[in-house]
Structures are given as C-alpha cells and as structure tokens.
C-alpha cells in the first residue's frame, strides 16, 4: 500500500527563518548595542578595518545558517496517513518520527499569521488529550493549504467512523448498517462580536499591565548599556522644572502604554466569532493573525463568568470555558468563549450551546452574621502595618488609615456577592476577589468537594466550601467563604454518590429538600 506523502507549503521555510530570527533578536541587539556604545558608534566599526567587521561577519554567518536551517526543516518535514494514524517525519539533524492515532486527536487548532493569509494557508496544531510538554502541541504543521487541512479533518472523521463500525461489528449488533457517509452538520454561527463590544473590551482590558511590565523588562535588560551618569545630570535639570513635568511625562507614558494595549487587544480579538456543530465549538478571532480554536463539547468541564468592577458597572462580562487537556503553559489554556459581552447577549448563546444548564439560578446567600469574617482577618494584619506607616511618616503616613474603610467596604461587597445554587445536576458558585466570578459546574464534572471550618467559623456555625474541576492539565477551584454550616452539609449531601448523608439530613431538616 503506497501512501501519498504530503509536504508543507514552501513558505514554511520563510516562517521557520523568521521564527529563528525572533529567537536571536535579543542576543543580536546586545552584541551590536554594546559595540555601538563602546567605541564611538557604528562608524568606528568600519574604520577599524577587517577587525571591526568581525561582529558583522559573525552576524551574517548566523543569519545564513538560520536561513538554511529553516529551508532544511521545511524540506525534511513530511506527513502522511496510514493505518488510521497521522504520521509525521521531521528533524533538522536527527530524523524524528511521530505517529498520532486519529482517535486520540482531540482538536485541530488553526492559526493564520501574516504570511499565511495572502496565500490562503493555515498553521495547524494537533492536540491530543495528554499533550505532555509544557506549551507544546503534540504536532504542528507550520503552513499547509486550506484543502490540505480539510483533508486531514476528513481523514480523521473517516478513521473515527471506521473505529465505530468495527466496534459495532465486534459487539455483534444485528444490523450492520452500510457506512453512512453523512456529511457533518454544517457549522452554525451563534455570535459575532460587534465593533462596540470590541472597543469596550480593548479600552477596559488589563492589557496595560502587560505592556508596562514588558517595558520594565526591556529597560532592565538594557540598564547596563544606558549611560546613567550622562542621563543623571539631565534628570536633575529636568527635575528643576518641577513635579508637574514629571507627572505629565508619567501620564503621557501611561497613555501611550494604554493606547498600545488597546490596539493589541483590537488586533487579537477582531471579528471574534462563535460557531458550533454537533460536537465542537469553534472560536475564530484576530486581524493580522487569525486564530481558530475548536473545543469539543465533551471536554468542557465548567463555565466561568467574570466581571471586573468597571465592567460590572456597565453590565459587561467575560466568559471562560474550563476545558480538560490541551497543552499547559499555553496562553489559550483558558479558552475565552466571550471576550466581552452584555449579559443579555451572552445568555441566549450559552443557553443554545449548553441547553441542559441553568444560567440564572436563584442564589442562596451567605448569612448576615458572617459579614465581619470577610474583613476581620485583613484587618488584623493591616493594623501593625498602618500603625508603622503612620508612625514613621507622620503626619502624611496617617493617610494609610484610608485603607481601612476600603478593606471593610470590599469585605462587605464580597459578602454580598458570595452565594451558591444547587440544582439536580448543577452546582453554581458565585464569589468575589475584586472582580466577580460565577462558576457553573455539572455534578459529573466536579472532581472533589472540600469543606473547611476554622475554630471561629465552628463557633458561629459557618463553613467555607470549595469545589474543584479539571482545567487544562490541572484543576480549577471555586471557593465560597463563610457560608452556613447547613449549606455545606447540603452541598456535600448533593454531591455524595451513595446519598447516605442526604437521607440523614433529610430526616433532620425535611423542609430543605422539597424539590
């Protein structure tokens, strides 16, 4: 049986090259940067004759090497289909082979970068249930045409159906049906992000922190190269213009960082779309780089709706899907189902995607007497801190006292938010750090439930409840603090498979189980 071997599109060589360059950019900057500052700039490099050109020579050799490596990597990469497996052979110096059985492939994720789009190509990441290494998909096809990607998907479908047919034969089902070569149900578009939502998302996102820290990292990387002595004098001069200018500069810098983060967020989430067929959700997004993520329904472990205070004020929320498996360390590990949308827009879509879940259950709240538990502890460790600042920086240090009402108010707010809802098969938990989170979990997805009680909670008949589901390679935890002890018992009883406790609790408190 001769198999057809497929190659990647030649543009992969270029992509490999660019990727190699990206990894080299920091060492290059350091090498050339140092030379620039050291002996009188770039011109000196050329004045010193051939010795001055050594860095340039080395640089060019490395460049050529990276280019050739990119080409060889492309030349060597072949994939083919055999025995219900996707088989890949690749490697620069060492030839590696990887065989992935189709029925172990969980999802194919597509990305279209700037090199891919004009040529109608995609990058395909093959993910399996136990993708082992950190941040690495099981296999990655750097650039193939759309048709090739579709062919992989088709082969995968065929292989999966084949397995099912075999199983049907084995289990001796009377009527062995003809292989129904039904086309997969067409995908249905459920939601497309509007421009308004995109703008609100971009302007209220926390991306600014990322940009700032990137700038900080960048500066710290090059701090040794910056001639601080020269700068220092200028700074002193600068300071004489007063705090106003300093403040203004900081403000402008922040503004620029913010604008950059807005632009990045727009690029990343442009035309965010949710599509679905019978067994997958497809999420597409991106302007320059188009990403498509597919999530199989059966891997969804729970749904989280989050709102930071600013977004909560305007009724916007983010929805994340906690999904099992996938590659850890990957940024997409937490898959955002809605980057940002009004509750009224998202609820119908959620309803359609997960029809057997209740999206607006009535919450049981934390009891009134637990309210001071929410700020008491913060209070205790705050007191010496505030006292110290007040003492050492008297009188201005006394402003530290302002943190006290903030803590108390936050505590009251957290108390007001905390709540849970039990349904036949679903547990919903709502809690607040600063932002508000609501976790929707099905009973059969919950891995374990913990109930904790401190000495003080025991005296007041309170308890904290924690539920863990699988997310990525690890777990995600929802925790509600300082609830009624009976609430904890009720959740344990609901969760217990043998129902022993339920029977026990029912006798003592029949009115709680009238459903």
């Amino acid at each position: 049986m001769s198999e057809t071997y497929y190659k990647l599109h030649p543009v992969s060589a270029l992509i490999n090259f660019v990727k190699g360059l990206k990894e080299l950019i920091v060492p290059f900057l350091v090498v050339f940067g140092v030379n620039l500052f050291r002996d009188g700039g770039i011109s000196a490099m050329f004045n010193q004759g051939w010795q001055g050109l050594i860095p340039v020579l080395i640089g060019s050799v490395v460049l050529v090497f990276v280019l050739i490596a990119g080409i060889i990597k492309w030349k060597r990469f072949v994939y083919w289909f055999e025995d219900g497996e996707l088989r890949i052979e690749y490697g620069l110096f060492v030839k590696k082979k990887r065989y992935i059985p189709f029925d172990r492939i969980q999802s194919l994720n597509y990305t279209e970068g700037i090199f891919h789009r004009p040529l109608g190509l995609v990058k395909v990441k093959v993910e399996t249930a136990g993708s082992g290494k950190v941040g690495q998909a099981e296999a990655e096809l750097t650039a193939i045409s759309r048709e090739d990607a579709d062919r992989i998907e088709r082969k995968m479908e065929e292989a999966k159906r084949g397995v099912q047919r075999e199983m049907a034969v084995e289990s001796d089902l009377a009527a062995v049906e003809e292989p129904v070569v039904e086309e997969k149900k067409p995908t249905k578009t459920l939601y497309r992000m509007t421009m308004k939502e995109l703008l609100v998302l971009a302007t209220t996102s926390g991306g600014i922190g990322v940009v700032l820290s990137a700038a900080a990292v960048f500066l710290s990387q090059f701090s040794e190269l910056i001639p601080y002595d020269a700068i220092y004098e200028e700074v002193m001069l600068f300071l004489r213009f007063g705090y106003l200018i300093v403040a203004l500069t900081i403000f402008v810098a922040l503004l620029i960082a913010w604008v950059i983060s807005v632009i990045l967020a727009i690029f990343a989430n442009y035309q965010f779309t949710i599509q679905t067929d019978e067994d997958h959700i497809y999420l597409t997004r991106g302007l320059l780089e188009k990403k498509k993520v597919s999530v199989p329904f059966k891997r969804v472990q729970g749904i989280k709706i989050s709102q930071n205070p600013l977004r909560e004020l305007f009724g916007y929320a983010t929805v994340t899907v906690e999904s099992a498996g996938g590659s850890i360390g990957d940024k997409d590990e937490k898959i955002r189902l809605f980057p940002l949308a009004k509750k009224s827009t998202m609820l119908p879509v959620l309803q359609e995607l997960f029809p057997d879940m209740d999206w607006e259950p009535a919450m049981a709240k934390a009891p009134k007497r637990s309210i001071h538990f929410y700020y008491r502890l913060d209070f205790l460790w705050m007191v010496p801190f505030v006292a110290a600042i007040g003492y050492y920086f008297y009188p201005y240090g006394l402003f530290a006292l302002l943190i006290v009402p903030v803590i108390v108010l936050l505590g009251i707010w957290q108390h007001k938010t905390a709540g849970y809802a039990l349904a036949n098969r679903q547990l919903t938990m709502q809690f607040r750090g600063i932002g508000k989170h609501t976790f929707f979990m099905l009973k059969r997805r919950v891995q374990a439930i913990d109930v904790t009680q401190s000495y003080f909670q025991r005296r007041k008949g309170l308890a904290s409840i924690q539920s863990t589901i699988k997310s990525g390679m690890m777990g995600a935890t929802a925790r509600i603090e300082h609830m009624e002890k009976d609430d904890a018992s009720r959740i344990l009883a609901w969760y217990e498979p043998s129902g022993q406790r339920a029977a026990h609790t029912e006798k003592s408190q029949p009115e709680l189980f009238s459903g």
Partner: protein
Amino acid sequence: MEHQPKNQISRKGLRVWRLYGMIQTAILAVLMIGAGVLTYFFDWPQWLYAVYAAIIIVYGALFIYLFPKIRWERWRYEVREQEIELQHGLFIVKRTLVPMVRVQHVDTEQGPILRKYDLAEISISTAATTHTIPALITAEADELRARISVLARVAEDDV
C-alpha cells in the same frame, strides 16, 4: 459536620509526627545555640538567653506534644463503596468528599522513617486533585489501595 468519618489513622502515626517534631526542634535548638554563642562573644544583653530557651521550649511543646496530638485526633477517613471521605486539619478542619468514579489511581509510598514504623501513606488521585492519608500500617495501606482500585473500576457514572 454531625457524623465524622469512621476510621482513624494508625496510633504509630502519632509517634512518627512526634519524631518529626523532635527533629525540627533539634534543628531549631542548634540555631538557637548558635545565636547564644554570638550573644556571648558580642556581649549582647543577657536576657536574650532566656528568649532563646523560651523559643526552644515553646516550639518543642507545640510541635512535639500539642500539634501532633490534635492532628492525630482530628484525622479521620472512610472508604465507602461509592465515595471516599477525609477529615483533617489543625486549626482549620477540612473535610473532603471524593466520589469513587472520579478516582484515577491510588499510590502507596513509604519513606525511611515510615518504613521503620511499618507505616505507609496512601495517595488518591483524581483528574485534578490528589489526597493523601498519611500514616497507615503497611499491610492495611496495601489492602486499602487494592480495595479502592477495585471500587473505582466498578463505580459507574450516575449522570
């Protein structure tokens, strides 16, 4: 919180924890003696000696006597047909419920000290969490491990 899980861990576990406490206290004592020597050579105030001694005594009393005792009395577990229930904690009591269906694998483990006392600890892993019962008689731990793995295979998903 009305009824507790039935089984307690081995009485010998208490002895092992006391032993751990003694080792920690011994290390602390060495540090404190070092501080004492410094105090002597640098003529620091005399009352510091009392502080060092007090630290050793209080630490020893807590970690050799009181904490192991509370922990041991608090530790309960129960393996039923369809679920495992654990209870432990010193200041904060934690109760955990793990359905049998969720159990993925069970391990037993034995360090040198545990082996000397013929004890083993048993870890129960689900897809997302791991739960450890710290001190069981080795034979008992092996038996429990076998039982859990049988039960976990039999247990059926209800929903």
